[in-house]
């Protein structure tokens, strides 16, 4: 029947696609296409008016409570994570773009460092949020400009039915790694409070294979500890007014290990961040209003034997969003953004400030019962200079009443402003930089099916994207002084790819089984050169794999849960001429847990094996990663 076809589809995808060679060609994807499947993970696709958004909710996050955002994304999404090692810097790459092109948001507030323009995902513990949304490509324009790849939004929401919930967890893992989380949610239908705390530490002295000596050695200078504390208050004053206040403090100390064949050192880094926000939502008749004001304080201190560098930034971020749906079939959503960043850094000559304001409007129009269109228009003003006008247009078509399939497409134009480092780094900074620009298009289809008895649910997705990025900023030796590196608008990158996902959930024999797969093909190439005899033109960007695939099988029965996650990363080039590369690899992680229900208390015991097959790999050249490692977690949950 339908499912038999389905197995064949999967089987052909897995057997002929991946094992046959390291490259899963689009051709083998097509083999499975006629079955009308291919889709996204235990996460799900949000109603999209032409743009792609994927949500990952708390049920999926729960077993990973003691890990960080980078490992969740690496296992469950098509976001490629570039990691410098266990507990070290991890940055995202979405759709063949750089980390600068992915905006990380905390409840809609951008938290990328205004200096670096990116976020270290290893410093965002899963314990500090209860949902996650990935907004792809042009879909992010109404939230913030410049996110060519997309936006990763970590979300905290209240549960209005909650009275009192107290949770605690403790994990013990290899390499003297310990994690602890505590949370308390209390309140009623009018007011809710959520308090969360997390602490983790690790000696992180894992064994790795040293090619030079042919022996296993212990990683040195890699220990870390981090902690965080947050408080959220939510209030439904009445049916029309909703207030929220959130504050989150986090601190991380991590040592930076030497590279293989590098010299011993004791470099280390301290990061501190205090993020706070207030939010007011007002609902009446045809009008929804959202007002948000946030203050983000980020501090970074880098220390080694001979120097110490401090970087302090503050951001004041304000957003107003209005939604008016008083006109038939049309909703109008205007908004204003007012942001102010300032930075005091040892690397800058004095205090540097930046003010950004944006106005935008989104129009969503139901042309027809089956067709919906949306148009986003955005205009930003940065340091009192008008940036180019940003438009995006999306359309969604649902041709059938009985078959739940949708087709959507969008086109967008986007601009990214240089980071403060690009502009103001002492001597090197280039205040004449232009904005980077992006011309993107995307088409996708989503199909889902529920069996009549609700025991089988299937969701399939196929998306193709195209994005031409111009005037990309690259740091390179300046023409007049080869020892002085300066950022210049010299590069051009064309990223195109396919994202395919397939998600099946089956309830049978008292078991709940879900099988989630995501595949990403990404060809991201250099298109322009400033050099004579440049061998990089038309070649794949470094550190962006052409093929990634991840698959998770979850089985839940009689209080037991079992998760198996497989992720495949294909070859990543390490030279722009593609003359050197890191081979592709598969990583497997496995989790087995059991819930024990004792009246109001739920106790759970979980064992986890990471890198199940003890693969000796590096994600970045000369940065060793740990082999097979273990983690045991105990969680206690009290619910009133």
């Amino acid at each position, binding site marked *: 029947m339908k499912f038999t076809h389905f197995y064949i589809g999967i089987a052909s995808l897995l057997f002929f696609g991946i094992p046959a060679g390291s490259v899963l060609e689009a051709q083998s994807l097509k083999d499975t296409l006629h079955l009308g499947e291919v889709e996204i993970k235990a996460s799900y696709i949000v109603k999209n008016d032409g743009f792609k958004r994927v949500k990952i909710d708390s049920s999926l996050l729960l077993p990973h409570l003691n890990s960080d955002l980078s490992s969740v994304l690496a296992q469950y999404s098509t976001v490629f994570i570039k990691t410098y090692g266990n507990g070290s810097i991890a940055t995202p790459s979405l759709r063949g773009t750089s980390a600068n092109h992915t905006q990380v948001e905390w409840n809609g507030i951008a938290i990328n460092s205004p200096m670096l323009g990116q976020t270290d995902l290893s410093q965002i513990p899963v314990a500090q949020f209860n949902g996650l949304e990935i907004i792809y490509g042009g879909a992010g324009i109404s939230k913030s400009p410049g996110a060519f790849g997309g936006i990763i939004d970590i979300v905290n929401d209240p549960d209005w039915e909650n009275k009192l919930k107290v949770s605690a967890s403790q994990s013990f893992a290899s390499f003297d790694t310990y994690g602890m989380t505590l949370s308390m949610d209390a309140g009623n239908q009018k007011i809710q409070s959520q308090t969360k705390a997390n602490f983790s530490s690790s000696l992180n002295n894992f064994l790795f294979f040293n090619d030079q000596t042919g022996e296993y050695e212990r990683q040195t200078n890699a220990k870390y500890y981090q902690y965080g504390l947050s408080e959220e208050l939510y209030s439904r004053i009445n049916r029309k007014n909703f207030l929220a206040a959130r504050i989150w403090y986090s601190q991380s100390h991590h040592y930076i290990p030497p*590279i293989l064949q590098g010299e011993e050192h004791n470099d280390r880094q301290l990061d501190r961040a205090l993020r706070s926000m207030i939010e007011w939502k007002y609902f009446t008749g045809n009008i929804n209003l959202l007002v948000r004001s946030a203050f983000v304080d980020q501090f970074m201190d880098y220390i080694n034997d001979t120097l110490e560098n401090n970087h302090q930034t503050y951001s004041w971020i304000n957003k107003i969003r209005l939604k008016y749906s008083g006109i038939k079939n049309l909703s109008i959503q205007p908004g204003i953004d007012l942001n102010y960043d300032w930075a005091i850094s040892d690397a800058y000559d004095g205090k540097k400030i930046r003010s950004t304001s944006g106005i935008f409007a989104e129009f969503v129009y139901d042309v027809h019962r089956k067709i919906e269109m949306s148009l986003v228009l955005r205009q930003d003003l940065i340091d009192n200079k008008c940036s180019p006008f940003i438009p995006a247009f999306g359309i969604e078509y649902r041709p059938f009443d009985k078959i739940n399939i949708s087709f959507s497409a969008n086109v967008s134009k986007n601009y990214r402003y240089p980071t403060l480092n690009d502009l103001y780094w002492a*001597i090197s900074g280039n205040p004449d930089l232009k904005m980077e620009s992006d011309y993107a298009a995307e088409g996708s289809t989503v199909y889902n099916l529920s069996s009549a008895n609700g025991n089988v649910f299937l969701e399939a997705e196929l998306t193709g994207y195209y994005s031409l990025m111009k005037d990309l900023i690259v740091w390179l030796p300046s023409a007049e002084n080869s020892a002085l590196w300066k950022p210049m608008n010299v590069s051009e990158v064309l990223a195109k790819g396919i994202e395919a996902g397939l998600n099946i959930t*089956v309830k049978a024999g008292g078991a709940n089984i879900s099988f989630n797969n995501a595949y990403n093909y990404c060809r991201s190439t250099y298109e322009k050169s400033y050099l004579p005899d440049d061998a990089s033109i038309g070649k794949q960007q470094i550190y962006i794999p052409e093929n990634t695939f991840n698959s998770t099988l979850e089985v839940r029965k009689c209080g037991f849960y079992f998760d198996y996650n497989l992720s495949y990363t294909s070859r990543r080039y390490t030279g722009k001429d593609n003359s*050197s590369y890191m081979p592709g690899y598969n990583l497997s992680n496995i989790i087995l847990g059991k819930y024990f229900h004792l009246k109001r208390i739920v106790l759970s015991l979980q064992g986890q094996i990471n890198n199940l097959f003890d693969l000796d790999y590096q994600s970045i050249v000369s940065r060793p990663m740990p082999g097979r490692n273990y983690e045991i977690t105990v969680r206690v949950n009290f619910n009133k």
Partner: protein
Amino acid sequence: MRITHLSCVFAFVIFFFAGCQKDHIREKTSSTNNGTDTSYTSGVFVVNEGNFNWANASVTFIDPINNKVYQDIYSDKNNGHKLGDVAESMSISNNKGYIVVNNSNKVEVVSATTFSSITSIDGFNEPRFILLYNGQKAYVSNLQKNISIIDLNTNKVVNNISVSGWTEGLASYGHYIFTTCLGDYNQPSSKRNPRILVINAEKDMIVDSIKTGIDPTGIVKDKKNKIWVLCTGGYDYTETPRLMRIDAEMRTVEKVFTLPSTGYPSRLTINNNGDTLYFLFNGVYQMPVSSEAVPSKPLISADGRNLYGLGIDPATGNIFVSDAKDYVQNGKVYQYNQNNGKCIHSYDAGRIPGSFCFTNSSR
């Protein structure tokens, strides 16, 4: 039932994958290895720095007579082992090659003909260049703290001369070693104390110092025993770059040549006869030591290339210059005729080709 099928498929896939990955996942190069039992008797070793912190330094051997290139010969001749992180320079003495690997903090000693590793010397403070002295010992400049002295018989660091700052170029005159000292590595160029230190090689002590322009990097001795020093002026344009001529016997500055203000000169080198200087300055400059002025334009222009390394073949006098491109792809080496500045040949090199070491170098 269906679920069982699915699990079986899944399990099978898992173990299929598991069986496939016995490899160590490490950086690989797709360069063709054409050297099997080659010995490197006549030609030039190109030291490719590799990217900082990537540990992908390598050595390319060019045989210009037979027009042959051998890539990554260190790995090739040493069971795939990697040379290390940031290989700065190489010198040959007594049929042994000494490769200074800056960020691995070591000097790798290899057979100059087979390139098989003999030993690895450590105990440096970010080594830069090596000067082999009378076949018995060698002086190694460091980014920080001191100058290291190696006993070439035991291949160990036997002594250090403390220096408050970054030492770079080395040249010898009689039993004196002249080394450029830029000053404190962690200070901006403008705040450094630039000078030449003179070491008595019999006592291994600093016996004199000569004030120079900002950031003296290159140093060579000509046939008339004049010491030439190239001062870059600082990466932050502290002052106009300059070339200084110092009398080695008197240790006095005889003449200072100012270079055109825009640019960053590097890689001061001299031909085997000791009568013509060469350096990079947005192109390759050629200047007879008898000249009273810096030429107004380069012999070879950069033409947009990122010229990075420079060497003069002692046998032919040909100019070897490397293009590091954008540092994130393999570079190239160009061979030029020194008389007319015409390109004779170009060769592929490794990542960031930075310095040259000729098999028949004697200076």
